[in-house]
């Protein structure tokens, strides 16, 4: 699981079966200092309430689809929480 910053929304009208009604967001993964790590990616929004500029956390791999209503669908990243606060130890 990892933190990410929502960059924008992605709309696709033709999608694989089971993905209808699932919102997709463009997300930049970040580390604990909120510095970008790796490439931006598209993630399904399991909270259905995240939006651009939100700090969120995501789950990847097989577990991503388990966050959605239909759990056997082709996604590899899902937003599972909207972050209120990050408490970081100083070093």
């Amino acid at each position, binding site marked *: *699981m*990892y*933190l990410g910053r929502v960059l924008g929304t992605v709309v696709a009208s033709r999608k694989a079966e089971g993905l209808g009604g699932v919102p997709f967001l463009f997300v930049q993964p970040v*580390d*604990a200092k909120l510095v970008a*790590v*790796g490439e931006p990616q598209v993630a399904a929004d*399991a*909270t259905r*309430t995240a939006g651009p500029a939100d700090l969120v*956390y995501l*789950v*990847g*791999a*097989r*577990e*991503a689809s*388990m*966050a959605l209503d239909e*759990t056997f669908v082709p996604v590899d990243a*899902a937003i*599972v*929480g*909207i*972050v*209120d*606060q*990050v*408490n*970081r*130890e100083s*070093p």
Partner: protein
Amino acid sequence: MKLCRVAGNVVATVKHPGFHGHKLMIVQPLDERGTDAGATFLAVDLVQAGPGDTVLVMQEGNGVRQILKAEKLPIRSVIVGVVDAVTT
């Protein structure tokens, strides 16, 4: 599994019900000498680990579902142990 240091925690109100009641920690992967190695990520704490603790982190969903006795759960990384010592 990975050797990590607990570097903080994350608080969220809006989240998947699978995360309710679990503490979500920021973990920093370490090498065998205890120095930072790679980018931080998040893991659910199952062993009451605290900030600064060296911990053992599993990143595999099937194992998580086995431990938490759940059939479907969007959790992939969990802290499964607090490390007392590493000898190399």
